[in-house]
């Protein structure tokens, strides 16, 4: 039995123990995962498509429920959070989704400032922080555009700005550089490092090996819902490369 109190008070941001999740009976999307991510960590979550990266992020955000096991995030027993408290829990988490999930009927500016509005922040603070972040992701020239008129890379940057604008305790990024050219990807990683230095725990799901190598951070590799040694995966890749 896990001692919840000690985890709550400790410096653990994400705690998984024997965590399993299946969308269908008998098919495990995640299979018996156990690991911890400390507060202030910067972690890459990697693995081939279908390995369970996105599922894990969705579990952490309480979009889906685990089938078995324990999941504590930021001191909260995630599956046990009452429905009417989930929104409070999510306010501490910034999430960048693979499909961006922008509000198409709101402008770029509104999409980002919306998060602060939801929190009831004063108008001036909303404007200041929103401008600041849109500048940082390099999309300040499209403030009044609507998402459908933007390119994939631009939408991605809006999504990144939205996730960061609230200085969340935990940042979940699902393939955040998937649609960005390498230079821009580096810029975004710098941004993530900045926010990481100011205390935010960062989890980046990506299969971009270059990025992972460049950053030299902790890597959690998944394959078919299980944690596998990153070194092993690296060796497989290297073997493949040698064969080429």
């Amino acid at each position, binding site marked *: 039995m896990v001692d919840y109190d000690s985890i709550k008070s400790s410096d653990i941001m994400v705690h998984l123990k024997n965590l399993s999740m299946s969308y269908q009976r008998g098919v495990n999307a995640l299979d018996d995962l156990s690991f911890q991510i400390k507060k202030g960590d910067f972690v890459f979550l990697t693995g081939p498509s279908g390995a369970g990266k996105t599922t894990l992020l969705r579990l952490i*955000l309480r979009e889906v429920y685990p089938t078995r096991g324990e999941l504590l995030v930021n001191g909260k027993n995630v599956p046990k959070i009452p429905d009417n408290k989930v929104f409070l829990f*999510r306010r501490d988490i910034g*999430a960048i989704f693979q499909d961006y*999930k922008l*509000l198409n009927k709101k402008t770029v500016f509104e999409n980002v400032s*919306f998060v602060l509005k939801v929190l*009831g922040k004063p108008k001036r603070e909303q404007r200041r922080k929103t401008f600041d972040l849109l500048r940082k992701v390099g999309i300040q020239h499209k403030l009044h555009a609507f998402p459908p008129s933007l390119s994939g890379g631009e939408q991605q940057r809006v999504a990144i700005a*939205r996730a960061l604008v609230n200085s969340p305790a935990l940042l979940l990024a699902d393939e955040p550089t998937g649609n960005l050219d390498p230079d821009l990807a580096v810029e975004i990683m710098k941004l993530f490092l900045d926010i990481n230095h100011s205390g935010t725990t960062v989890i980046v799901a990506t299969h971009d090996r270059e990025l992972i190598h460049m950053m030299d951070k902790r890597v959690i590799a998944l394959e078919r819902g299980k944690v596998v040694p990153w070194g092993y995966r690296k060796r497989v890749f290297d073997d493949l490369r040698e064969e080429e």
Partner: protein
Amino acid sequence: MLEQLSNLKYFIVESLSNIWRNKIVNLLSIGTITISLFILGIFFLAGLNLSAVIEEWVEKVQVNIYLKSDITQNNFLYLKDRIETSPEVEEYKYISTRDALDDFKDIFSKYETFAEQLGEDVFPASFEIKIKNEFRTPEMIEKFAQRFESINGIEEIHYDRDWIQRLNTIVKLIQLAALVIGGILVLAAISTTSNVIRMTITSRKDEIEIMRLVGASNSFIKGPFFFEGLIQGLLAGGFAVIMLYLLYDVTSNYIKTSAGMFFTFMDLQFLSDIHIVVFLIGGMLVGTLGSLFSLGRFLKV
């Protein structure tokens, strides 16, 4: 407090822009609420005005005792005495045959010559008796009238009992119909609103999901939908009042100009200010209930 106010502004702006964005569907539900409130209003106005008419008539309730032309002096005096000493009588007036003829001429001035030709005797003399307020029930009037039946020299005792009872029944029927039909219409309006709001919710499912994911509270998400119903209802209430006023205007003009002599005394009443407020609030309630139903069913976390 400031936060709540700014939320309120956000809710109202959001719901207005949403109503504007989905004009057609929203017109559907506004229209349904309007029509139900309008029909309900027609019944209400009819009841209101008929009650006023009845009240006026009840006020005028009088017992007329028509005398035979050959009534003896003794009988006449005895009758007069009995009337004077009856506790039910507020006041009474003796109308001679001449008075009756003059009255007729006053009321039907067109037929003056015709009345002259008939001569004095066609209209019997009578006592017009006004009954005290506390005795103005059909039963008491009947009892009162019966006490005079045995006196010789009386042609007929006349009072408006049947009419009053019939009118009372009609008003009760109208009120019942208003309740039943109005109730059904209001339910239909609530269900239409609820369906329209459900459509809006469905069409904005992605948006709602995103709002949830960035930590918007339930009430923050529901607010605009709630106000959408409320505004629909309020608009519908306003439209219904306007339509009722137009109907009232046309009808009362028609009565004044063309219904002839019988109804000229009758000034139609319109809804009082309080009624109008009740109507608007009623509309708001219908819209709000509609949106609450949908929110309860389709916006569970």
